[in-house]
């Protein structure tokens, strides 16, 4: 067994049973690991009859073959479940140290079933797995829980939920190593529903390699790529991910005031340059990452991590706020309560517009930086209006009679790119399997940064092909598992060669990308089985009808023709259902019998 550890850990919180089963290697070579393996297991384990908060829903924690090998950014893992926010297939992905320790404890994946009678935490070591009482930890924040359980990134990693997960905030995060987050779609709420407060891991077993010399050479060549690329070698380390704030704003693609505009006049106040100048203590990195994009920052209230680009945007431009101190403090609170900052900020922005339009009685208004911190605390603890915001923007906007004001796709709030100024990005959001998301493929490289080459961001014809390629590539990265920021400099070809040298299984680049296509189509089948249709591959009407401002002035999203091209290019029918020939080509025909 090379690359994979060959074992899956099964924990039933209802019965307390703990077992280990061999990893199905056919499944692993087809779906790789991480997100792909999680989706394949979820297909078998969680059908449409299972509600997200049912004990029958599962949490699948999965490393990938690359995890813990020392290859650049090989620190990540994924969490798969049925999302309580969207009802779709979900995986959320996180870096830090936990994934590395988990795999070195001897496992490729862990399936958590059932619900504990009272709060518990799981402790995983190489010599055994135990379930402990966590009553004393229930109600405690992420930082308190991490400290209480002995978080030490070099020896012992703590993954946990905060009060938001306990209170089933629909966009609650699972946090690890205190500040890393698997957040989108609310996996933390599922963990809370299981009365599972934390999972602690310790592990030292090294991953075996098929051809270590060749693997190290691919790693060496990958280092050259990272060093030579100005985004990974200069921009991200110096300014963090918010280095793109001014760039995106300049082209008129920075969603502002709940996407009412696409240019924010105060963007520079929340940019990477200002963060570095005003609040940065130093940049830090996840395990085995030479990029080091993480921001260790300080405000008058303390120190913490963030804000990253999406958080600076969601509490900033999306809410019409440019008070960096308030944004950063709010980010700290989100981390400590365990919440997705994108959904939190975007839901607040939605509430601000509902209020300004007279549909909601609240003090929230665009620009009210003074209310941010209290509002996210209220969400985490489900106090007052916060209890309604904890349901996400789609449910909030629908409740107050204006569903069109939720800037979400499949009920997942969209991130910090306006589809009117980046046509491909709009198609990407509309078709993302977990809802409005930039981590299921991202057109930032192609449409803005020129990575690998710049294409016209407003062009419509041919965009489907790029979107599909990026979606497959993202599925691969989430499954091997590596950070997408590494992919800014390191092409898929390098990952394919690293995987081949590591596992001994031949993965030509084309075949690896095809594995991404297999994963994408399986996730699509999952959503179809849940009742999702073509109508769900859509964008909020504002983006289709109301012109953008700033550098994209007058533009709207041309989703219709792009979506048609997308379905054709994917080998799907006009309703977005994969055709039999495509499913046979991907080896999914038998699985799909109950759907297609």
């Amino acid at each position, binding site marked *: 067994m090379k690359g994979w550890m060959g074992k899956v850990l099964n924990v039933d919180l209802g019965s307390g049973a703990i077992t280990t089963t061999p990893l199905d290697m056919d499944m692993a070579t087809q779906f790789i690991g991480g997100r792909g393996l999680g989706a394949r297991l979820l297909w078998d384990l969680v059908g449409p009859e299972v509600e997200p908060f049912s004990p029958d829903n599962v949490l699948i924690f999965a490393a990938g073959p690359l995890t813990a090998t020392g290859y650049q950014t090989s620190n990540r893992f994924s969490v798969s479940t049925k999302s309580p926010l969207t009802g779709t297939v979900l995986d959320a992905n996180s870096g830090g140290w936990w994934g590395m320790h988990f795999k070195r404890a001897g496992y490729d994946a862990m399936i958590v079933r059932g619900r504990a009678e009272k709060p518990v935490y799981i402790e995983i070591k190489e010599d055994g797995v135990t379930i402990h009482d966590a009553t004393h930890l229930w109600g405690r924040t992420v930082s308190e829980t991490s400290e209480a359980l002995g978080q030490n990134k070099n020896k012992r990693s703590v993954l946990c939920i905060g009060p938001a997960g306990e209170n089933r905030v629909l966009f609650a995060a699972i946090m690890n190593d205190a500040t890393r987050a698997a957040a989108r779609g609310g996996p933390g709420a599922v963990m809370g529903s299981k009365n599972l407060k934390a999972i602690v891991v310790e592990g030292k077993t090294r991953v075996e390699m098929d051809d270590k*010399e*060749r693997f190290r*050479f691919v790693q*060496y*060549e990958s280092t*050259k790529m990272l060093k*030579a690329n100005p985004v990974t070698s200069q921009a991200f380390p110096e300014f963090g991910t918010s280095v793109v704030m001014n760039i995106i704003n300049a082209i008129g693609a920075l969603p502002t005031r709940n996407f009412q505009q696409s240019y924010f006049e105060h963007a520079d106040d929340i940019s990477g340059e200002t963060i570095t100048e005003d609040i940065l203590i130093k940049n830090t990195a996840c395990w085995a990452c030479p990029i080091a994009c993480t921001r260790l920052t300080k405000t008058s209230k303390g120190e913490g991590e963030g804000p990253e680009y999406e958080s600076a945007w969601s509490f900033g431009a999306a809410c019409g706020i440019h008070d960096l101190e308030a944004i950063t403090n709010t980010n700290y609170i989100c981390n400590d309560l365990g919440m997705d900052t994108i959904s939190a900020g975007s839901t607040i922005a939605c509430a601000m517009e509902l209020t300004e339009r007279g549909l909601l009685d609240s003090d929230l208004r665009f620009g009210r930086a003074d209310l941010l911190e209290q509002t996210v605390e209220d969400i985490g603890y489900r106090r007052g209006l916060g209890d309604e915001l904890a349901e996400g923007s789609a449910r909030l906007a629908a409740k107050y009679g204006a569903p069109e004001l939720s800037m979400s796709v499949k009920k997942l709030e969209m991130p910090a790119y306006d589809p009117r100024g980046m046509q491909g990005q709009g198609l990407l959001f509309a078709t993302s399997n977990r809802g409005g998301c930039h981590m299921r493929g991202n057109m930032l490289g*192609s449409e803005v940064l020129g990575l*690998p*080459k710049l*294409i*016209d961001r407003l*062009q*419509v*014809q*041919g965009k*489907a*092909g*790029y979107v*599909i*390629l990026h979606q*497959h*590539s993202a599925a691969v990265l989430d499954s091997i598992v590596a950070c997408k920021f590494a992919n800014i400099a390191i092409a*898929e*070809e390098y990952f*394919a*060669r690293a995987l081949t040298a590591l596992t001994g299984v031949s993965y*030509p*680049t*084309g*075949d690896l*990308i*095809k594995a991404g296509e297999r994963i994408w189509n399986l996730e699509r089948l999952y959503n179809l089985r849940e009742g999702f249709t073509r109508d769900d591959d859509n964008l909020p009407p504002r983006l289709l009808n109301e012109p953008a401002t700033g550098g994209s002035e007058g533009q709207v999203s041309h989703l219709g023709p792009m979506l048609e*091209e*997308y379905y*054709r*290019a994917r*080998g799907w029918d006009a309703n977005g259902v994969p055709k039999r020939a495509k499913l046979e080509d991907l080896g999914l025909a038998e699985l799909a019998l109950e759907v297609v």
Partner: protein
Amino acid sequence: MVDERVYEMFREIGRDMYVHNLVSSHGGNISVRFGDRIIIKRRGAMLGRLKPHDLIETGLEKNDSGVALASTELIVHRAIYKATPALAVVHAHPRRAISLSLSRDEIIPIDNEGSYLLKKIPVVEVEFASGTPQMANAIADGLRTYKIVMMRGHGSFATGQTLDEAFQWTDALEEVCEIIMYAHAMNEQMIEYRKHSDSYKNW
């Protein structure tokens, strides 16, 4: 109907290929994949002087009237798109690379840029090396693992997300071969400056 931006891309890359001596007057061909469609240079059109009507649209899988007008190498382009994630293909006749392909089974750069970008370029060989299924399969198979391959005595096929990316690999290959030829002609002992340079053979 082909978007004006797409035509502009074809015209510029085609012109640059001719200016860079990567093709003769009527040689070479380029294409892009748009979903289940291919846009490819018209058969017999001059890459250096492409007009809007020189861009032919046809199916990736299915034939239509476009195949009567498309490049003779359409079969190869289709095979590449089906076997790889490529969204653009550039086929050229780079003279130095063709020359080197006559005497070796792989071209390994000795210059820094070529080593960085390409590592190794395999040379494949088939009996009928123009527009045949045999050739299409050999090229497509090579491009599953490498971004550019040489057909012995014929020319290069390169893939990319865009035409300019595939063009970059093609132009880089020709530069690689020119430097190899210069170094060879000088007949002096090469001072190896690259760590792990022997490993490029195994790329």
